[in-house]
């Protein structure tokens, strides 16, 4: 078995057993990136030199018996996380020249746990997209079929893990940006409960929805990564101050006594019958392991896409007002006055989709429209949250499809924003309610992976990781890898 075919957990065992050094592992993955990423475009920046020196340092620490949880394991960071001394572009021309002067808390914590950073992954510009086609650096290709999208916005992280160019990566999820690309590339990805992972140094899109999380081959890998990412941070005022859970302890717990809820609203008549069937088959597998399956109802989730496309653009229009061409980022040539400097720097620095969302958000927040749009959307948000609360009275976890379809062709929806927005129809409600959710591969359709989503109650990341891990012990969808790159 080649090194890249191993999961992160298996690589950790190899490192811990002294079978391989971090330097060897890091060189191995850097060589794969060098060889294969030209076709995928999953990385914006490869930090080879820094990775080698971090790997050497990890090997020294291990020799001294001071290895942290992720010691020596190479990972990639989505280019939305600030990395000290390394370009942090957020997929935008606006930040193409931005060398961050500090590390995001997530980066700092994972570095402290011993992780080695291979580089920064491509993404939709400012995380606004579901296909990775809005990136200033060009689209990422899906390694299962290079003519198709990997999903978005964490498309670079998903493609890199799926093509085994990195054993794991970080992502962020505002409306599905970890789970949808995980589903479209056949990997496992988790969005934690809002407030569990610090947002400090993670470039803000919609502050009341954004959460960072892990993306890897398996649920066990995600548990390992999440363990090193969580914890209270004084620097993020929405970071929750509560004890850190142990996500690894209950991974193997049997599923007897578990109740799985299937929301009827996640199986509309218009849903691809094959996606509906593989989701139901996942439920049957959990039943075989002792879980009970019940029907639940989330009547207000049908309003989640409209509510999201008020709340997220409104918050984005406010967050992105900091990009003014003055303090950092892109500045236009020869501005005639300050207003010209602001306007041209922003319209030349931001791409079309980002500008559209800023305009929608500005409109929704403008005088006379606030009550009709933003306030109403925030009220609908409570209806959605209340639906989930009622469903969790009947079920421990909720199961449904992650995405209404498998990876679609590049360009298929690029010019039709509203159709593109529907790619996140099953994932958005979870962000509005702030719940944890995971996507895992659960079948193949026409040679492309399809994912299912497990939603947990607040702070039940451990439980959905446990359910996913048990599922992955009985099935091998998560071990399927694209033919891309071959065996070597």
């Amino acid at each position: 078995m080649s090194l890249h075919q191993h999961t992160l957990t298996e690589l950790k065992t190899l490192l811990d057993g002294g079978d391989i050094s971090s330097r060897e592992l890091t060189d191995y993955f850097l060589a794969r990136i060098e060889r294969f990423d030209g076709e995928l475009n999953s990385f914006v920046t490869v930090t080879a030199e820094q990775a080698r020196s971090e790997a050497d340092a990890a090997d020294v620490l291990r020799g001294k018996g001071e290895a942290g949880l992720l010691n020596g394991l190479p990972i990639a960071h989505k280019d939305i996380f600030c990395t000290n001394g390394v370009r942090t572009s957020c997929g935008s021309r606006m930040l193409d020249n931005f060398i961050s002067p500090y590390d995001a808390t997530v980066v700092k914590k994972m570095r402290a746990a011993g992780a080695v950073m291979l580089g920064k992954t491509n993404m939709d510009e400012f995380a606004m997209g579901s296909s990775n086609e809005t990136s200033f650096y060009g689209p990422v290709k899906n390694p299962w079929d290079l003519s198709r999208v990997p999903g978005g916005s964490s498309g670079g992280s998903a493609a890199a893990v799926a093509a085994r160019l990195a054993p794991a990566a970080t992502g962020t999820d505002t409306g599905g940006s970890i789970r949808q690309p995980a589903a479209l590339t056949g990997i496992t990805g988790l969005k934690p409960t809002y407030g569990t992972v610090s947002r400090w140094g993670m470039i803000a899109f919609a502050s009341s929805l954004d959460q960072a999380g892990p993306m890897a081959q398996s649920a066990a890998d995600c548990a390992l990564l999440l363990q090193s990412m969580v914890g209270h941070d004084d620097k993020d005022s929405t970071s929750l101050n509560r004890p850190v859970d142990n996500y690894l302890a209950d991974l193997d717990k049997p599923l007897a006594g578990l109740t799985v809820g299937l929301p009827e609203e996640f199986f509309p008549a218009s849903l691809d019958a094959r996606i509906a069937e593989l989701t139901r088959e996942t439920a049957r597998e959990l039943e075989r392991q002792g879980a009970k399956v019940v029907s639940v109802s989330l009547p207000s989730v049908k309003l989640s896409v409209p509510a999201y496309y008020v709340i997220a653009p409104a918050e984005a229009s406010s967050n992105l007002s900091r990009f003014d061409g003055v303090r950092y980022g892109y500045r236009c040539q020869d501005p005639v006055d300050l207003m010209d400097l602001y306007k041209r720097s922003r319209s030349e620095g931001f791409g079309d989709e980002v500008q559209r969302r800023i305009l929608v958000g500005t409109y929704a927040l403008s005088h006379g429209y606030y009550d009709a749009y933003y306030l109403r959307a925030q009220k609908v948000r409570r209806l959605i949250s209340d639906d989930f609360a009622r469903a969790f009275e009947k079920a421990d976890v909720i199961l449904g499809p992650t995405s209404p379809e498998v990876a679609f062709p590049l360009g298929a929806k690029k010019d039709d924003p509203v159709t593109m927005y529907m790619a996140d129809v099953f994932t958005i409600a979870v962000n509005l309610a702030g719940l944890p959710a995971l996507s895992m591969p659960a079948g193949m359709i026409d040679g492309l992976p399809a994912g299912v989503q497990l939603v947990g109650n607040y702070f039940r990341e451990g439980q959905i990781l446990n359910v996913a891990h048990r599922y992955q012990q009985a099935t091998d969808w998560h071990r399927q890898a694209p033919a891309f790159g071959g065996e070597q």
Partner: protein
Amino acid sequence: MAIDQDTVMKVAHLARLHVSSEQSAALAGRLSDILNMVDELASADVDQIAPLAHPLDVSQPLRADIAEPADLRDRVLPLAAASEGGCFLVPRVIE
């Protein structure tokens, strides 16, 4: 709700985005598509519902009010397109 080109230009100014009159026609169409989709919100009965700002309904915690040295100037100013004497440079505002 459909929005017209004049509204697009007005909102673009509020958002400090440069939009040409040619672009505003196409943008009015795109933004109207999005707003039409969003208008579905009007169907919800939310009269008695309180808005939800934080998913966990927690209030903002406060940290101790202690000043920390912020000696960032030397690291931050080089990120700007133009700076001089420890300040950011912008086009003249006051004649």
